[in-house]
């Protein structure tokens, strides 16, 4: 703040600065979340909900074997996607930071990575369907090349298609933070390691990976939360053949079973929070970012 403000005003300044975000978070995240938690304890009779306190919704959600299955299925997607995006994100960033010498080329290539983001998520997802389908491009290519004589059904409407789409959609969320932390690595450190006789593998393992872990952690948080909260990709790419936690929630919402859906939502938030906490335990992002 400028020198014109009084001492009390300058004490107020940080609060004023944080106020817009705080206001947004409170109204757009806080209030809805509280509503969901509240709703998950309310009673309902099939269409209307009544303020009350009941554990029945949680009992229903936790008592059903479907819930565990849904969470396991969703976690499986999250882990597969996480592993793939980390490997791809790390390799891409490594190439960009350590192999591309010219800064201009580096920036140019980095921008190339963002090109798919110029169209919407939905279009990027749906464009896989004609490619992977039974009579799609990929299958007809394989058949014409004589590699297979019947189209591969597993390519579309399968877990493969779901994970492939996730990887396509979310890899950039991994590349950006990893690239950012790698770019901060002092090249003298690598030189010193090399002078001290470290092999390239040792440099990678003992210098680059530890110094990129903030980026990996940040990217993981993005990818995990995006996959855990998705239902659209699962529905479309599995052809409705697989369910995720949120797609099951949607079935409940469609039938106006809000309290049950809310209980599931609260459970999902808890699981995601646990996962994010675990990631933050492994990597202290705050101190790493301050570095």
């Amino acid at each position, binding site marked *: 703040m400028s020198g014109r403000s009084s001492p009390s005003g300058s004490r107020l300044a940080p609060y004023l600065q944080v106020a817009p975000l705080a206001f947004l978070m409170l109204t757009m995240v806080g209030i809805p979340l509280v509503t969901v938690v509240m709703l998950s304890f309310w009673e309902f009779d099939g*269409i209307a909900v009544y303020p009350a306190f009941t554990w029945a919704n949680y009992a229903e959600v936790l008592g059903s074997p*479907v819930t565990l299955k849904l969470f396991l299925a969703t976690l499986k997607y999250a882990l597969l996607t996480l592993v793939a995006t980390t490997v791809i994100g790390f390799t891409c960033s490594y190439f960009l930071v350590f192999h591309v010498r010219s800064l201009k080329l580096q920036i140019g290539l980095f921008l190339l990575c963002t090109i798919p983001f110029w169209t919407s998520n939905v279009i990027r997802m749906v464009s896989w369907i004609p490619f992977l389908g*039974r*009579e799609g491009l990929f299958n007809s290519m394989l058949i014409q090349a004589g590699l297979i004589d019947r189209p591969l059904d597993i390519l579309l409407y399968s877990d493969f298609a779901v994970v492939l789409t996730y990887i396509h959609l979310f890899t950039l969320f991994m590349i950006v933070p990893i690239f950012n932390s790698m770019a901060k690595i002092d090249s003298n450190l690598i030189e010193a390691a090399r002078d001290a006789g470290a092999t390239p593998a040792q440099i990678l393992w003992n210098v680059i990976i530890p110094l990129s872990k903030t980026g990996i952690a940040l990217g993981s948080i993005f990818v995990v939360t995006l996959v855990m909260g998705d239902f659209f990709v699962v529905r479309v790419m599995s052809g409705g053949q697989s369910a995720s936690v949120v797609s099951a929630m949607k079935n409940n919402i469609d039938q106006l079973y809000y309290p049950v859906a809310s209980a599931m939502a609260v459970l999902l938030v808890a699981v995601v929070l646990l996962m994010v906490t675990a990631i933050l335990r492994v990597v202290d992002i705050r101190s790493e970012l301050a570095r």
Partner: protein
Amino acid sequence: MSEKMASKAAAQGVTRRELLKGTAALTGAAVGSGVIGAPMIWAQNLKDVTLNQVGPSYSVIADIAEKASADLGFKIVPQTSETTQLMAKVVNQPETIDIADLEFWGLQKVYRSGNLQPVDITKIKMWGDITPLMRDGKSFDGSDMARQGTLPVKVLYTDSAESTEFAAAPTGLATAMPTIYNADTLGIRPDLVGREISSWVELFNPEFKGKTALVNIPSIGIMDAAMALEARGDLKYVDKGNMTKEEIDKTIDALIALKKDGQFRAFWSTFDESVNLMAAGEVVIQSMWSPAVTAVKSRNIPCVYQGLKEGYRGWGVGMGLMRHLEGIKLEAAYEYLNWYLTGWQGAFIARQGYYSSVPETAKANLSENERGYWYEGKAATEDIKDPYGNIMDKAGSSRDGGSFEQRMGNIACWNAVMDEDRYMIQRWNEFVSS
């Protein structure tokens, strides 16, 4: 108090309408505040009325709203919202809707919210002309229709304006005015199936392993599955539209086994998904809506809405009046409802394969060729066009399943919500995630 308010309103009316004759202004203001009713003034104000009609895309259609607005002089604003979202709106945001086009199973679910008011059938001029299929639940020969599921008549009447229950027998108050309905069945790709299909059991025939699909709307998907299971002889349902827990378990267990065997290619959720699955040859036999079959055909890909010997799964839509409608807006809504039955809408909707609740006026608005094709099961004498003028069937072909009487007379069950709905959804989620 009310006198004071009325006089205040009248006073404002005078100042606002200084150019009008004093008496007219007073009457107008009084009408506006709902004190007395004078139709003469309404005709004047009717132009300012706007009615929001909300319903599924196959029922609430911009062309119909436009034509109605032009004919009636007030504005109908169409807004599409699939039945599931519409139910949520009726319950939670009733003020955003004036007229709700609800499927009867949706009506069954949300009428007791009390957010709808009954339709006074004496104000519907052609109520007596509405087909007995809808009005009384009677088939063409006067016999009772299949009562499995939500037969429209079961939820069509109520006892009083305040009641949120359904009446067992017809009364003077309808929960909604029936508009469109149809008989649903399976869609097939005759070129890829390569033989005659005549039973629901083919949906689960191993011959089509990996090439079948079900609709992923649990309450409807489970019924298509039940039709096929019953045809396969697995079990006999008391009421496919209202299964017991045991029946639900048996059905879902059978479905899970089929899914593990790889019987299904997909479970579709939206209209276009079903069209693409069929058009791309991903599936050859599946649950389908009639306009989806039309859409596949208009891409020059053979597709048949195959009538099957076990019968059809029926559905219907009714127009409900929201509770908050009153005065001139309510009058306008009744005018719109009356317009709906006069035939233009019935003919429009016939061209996408649906029937009108007053078939006579709809037929009168169709050409002889169209009438023969859509209603009478006759071969087309010239090309058949959809509502937007695209050719959808060639001269010489006739409608799948035959005439109005053959199709609607052979309904085995109706789209419904079950008493055990909550349990069913839970098990359906298990099926999808297995």
